[in-house]
């Protein structure tokens, strides 16, 4: 039955359904069970924000609490994947990924290539991303561009509960390593989610709103900021396409180009830092492949090139706001061909 559930519950449900369906699916990570070994507390925690709560009671020893050694258990998950399991490794915060770069970049991402296609690595690394949680510089980054850069990895960042469930099931069934990025400020966000299992294919962006004047490309939490901006712009009679990329690698260039060909104007929103980001990637790709469709230069709305501040006031300023997106749309409408909203008759 379709009902409204949170993104956190949708992720839990996806893992539960895949564990029921496929005995090779296992889950490991820090506190994913919580308190194993303490009588009566075996299912106490369910991960740092309780996403996997309740799964131990259903699937027992297929969930494993690991020592605080990311390189060890992420490596173990990757090895298990190469040996026929479908492990999900939960790495609390993407910020900690640095200690297991060899396992991810140089092993998991390379096995298929190095062994001539004879090895596959169906591992999912679930991790929390994003700012706004008052968790300071070492627990708040949006490091999606770093993983998107590496061939052999797939990178997913859902914006809502429905997408999270379908994309996570797809990630678990996929035969390549997937970095599954969960925005901690979206865990409570609710949408209509069928109780049954379903998949959303990788490389398919979602056009969440349609308009003829400009294209806003976003992912994760920024989709919601873009929708707020679109709502504000609609009051000024400016109608925008809002594209949720959903997966960053592979990425759905066709949908982005198709939209820009209709609107002629592009704003890319990324919660990552401004350089070598998803924003620069999309702007550059459109600039190279659809330059003729652009009526004005692409605009980027990103976080600044600084660590995420701990001061709440500064952190709020750090995160790209809907106001900044509105301003960027106005900038692109005010510049270039047919500026001021008046299209040249062609």
């Amino acid at each position, binding site marked *: *039955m379709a009902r409204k559930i949170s993104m956190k519950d949708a992720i839990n449900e996806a893992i539960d359904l895949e564990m029921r369906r496929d005995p090779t699916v296992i889950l490991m990570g820090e506190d994913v069970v919580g308190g194993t070994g303490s009588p009566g507390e075996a299912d106490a925690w369910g991960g740092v924000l309780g996403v996997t709560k309740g799964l131990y009671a259903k699937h027992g020893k297929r969930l494993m609490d690991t020592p605080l050694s990311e390189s060890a258990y992420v490596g173990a998950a990757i090895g298990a994947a190469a040996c026929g399991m479908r492990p999900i490794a939960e790495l609390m915060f993407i910020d900690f990924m640095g200690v297991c770069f060899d396992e991810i970049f140089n092993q998991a991402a390379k096995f298929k290539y190095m062994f001539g296609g004879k090895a596959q690595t169906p591992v999912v690394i679930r991790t929390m991303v994003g700012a706004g949680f008052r968790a300071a510089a070492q627990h708040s980054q949006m490091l999606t561009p770093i993983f998107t850069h590496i061939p052999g990895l797939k990178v997913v960042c859902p914006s809502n509960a429905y997408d999270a469930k379908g994309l996570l099931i797809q990630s678990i069934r996929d035969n390549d390593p997937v970095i599954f990025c969960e925005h901690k400020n979206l865990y409570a966000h609710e949408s209509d989610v069928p109780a049954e299992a379903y998949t*959303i294919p990788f490389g398919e962006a979602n056009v969440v709103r349609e308009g003829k004047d400009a294209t806003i490309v976003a992912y994760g939490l920024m989709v919601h900021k873009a929708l707020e901006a679109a709502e504000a712009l609609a009051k000024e009679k400016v109608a925008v396409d809002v594209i949720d990329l959903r997966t960053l690698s592979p990425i759905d260039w066709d949908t982005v180009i198709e939209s820009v060909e209709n609107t002629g104007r592009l704003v890319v929103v990324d919660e990552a830092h401004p350089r070598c980001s998803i924003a620069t990637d999309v702007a550059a790709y459109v600039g190279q492949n659809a330059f003729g469709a652009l009526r004005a230069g692409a605009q980027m709305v990103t976080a600044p090139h600084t660590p995420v501040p701990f001061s709440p006031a500064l952190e709020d300023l750090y995160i790209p706001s809907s106001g900044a997106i509105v301003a960027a749309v106005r900038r692109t409408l005010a510049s270039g061909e047919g500026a001021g909203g008046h299209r040249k008759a062609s």
Partner: protein
Amino acid sequence: MTESRIRPIVMPKWGLSMSEGKVTGWLMKLGATVKVGDELLEVETEKIASVVEAGDQGTLRRIIGEPQTVYPVKALLGVLADDEASDSEIDAYVASYVTPAAAEEEEEAGPQYLVAELPSGTVRYAKRGEGDAAIVLIHGLGGDLDNWLFNIDALAKRASVYALDLPGHGQSSKTIADPTLRGLARALIQFMDEVGIEDAHLVGHSLGGAIAMQTALDAPDRVRSLALIGSAGLGPEINSGYIDAFVTAGSRRELKPVLQHLFAKKELVSRQLVDDVLKYKRLDGVDEALRKLTSSLFTGGRQQALPGAVLRDADIPIMVIWGEDDEIIPAKHAATLIGKARTHVIAGAGHMVQMEAANAVNALLEEHVGAGR
């Protein structure tokens, strides 16, 4: 009575989940003379855009619903009145109109969706109305009970109306025990057993029509009458290109042009409608279910089972309704039961005629069910 001369035009409720709609524009001018069935205004919901047709006659004396504005279901959008009604009477009517609260409505109508556990799996259904006679609405291939969103409440005024999700469809189980017409008819009879429907008027659209006919042949005492809408089972032709494309389409881009074949007015295929079908198609088991059904029922691009031919001799009232511009099953099949059935071909409508010409279809169905009572 003043009230009888002043009649409200309200935001319709299309489907069980609709709570509000946006007025997109009026098709009638203030002061126009309105006949029953005239197109009054256009309304758009999350799911679909359609036209509100007049349910009464009179002069359009007030236009209240503003274009591009969202109103709750049952909100007053305009007023029809006879010319004798004075302006002050109409103003008083407008001033005293209270939109019924959605919560009360819900309580009145009971839960939106119900579930029946059959030997072959779970079936989701909706029930509306409390009349003695039962009507069962049976959707077509790839559809669900929301295909009746413009019909279920209209029919529920005088009957108990049930709309179900067929096996493999909507939110029913995706396993199909027996993908033949007989198997699907058996599932329908099991459904009627489970929810306690002794006999019913069966209203079937497309594949649902063929299932209704098969049920009438296999269990004649359970079927009071048949209404067949753009029905399968009346001739061998079917648009196999549509069937194949519907089954294989995996993205919004692929699916949208496919779904446009279902409607004469192509703009009715909204983004939300395409999304909803795509979400259904992505559920585990749906692909297999659709392939099973189509390879059993439409082998080689032809309809395999034609229960219509046998029904010619059956002692049962039949109504046949078709959209003249049907691109899935040709409207010429409407002639198959001529002489036996009352046949209506509706201009300007396609395969989803019960959605595109809802008022006309509802009026025909009410008349048909009334006659067969």
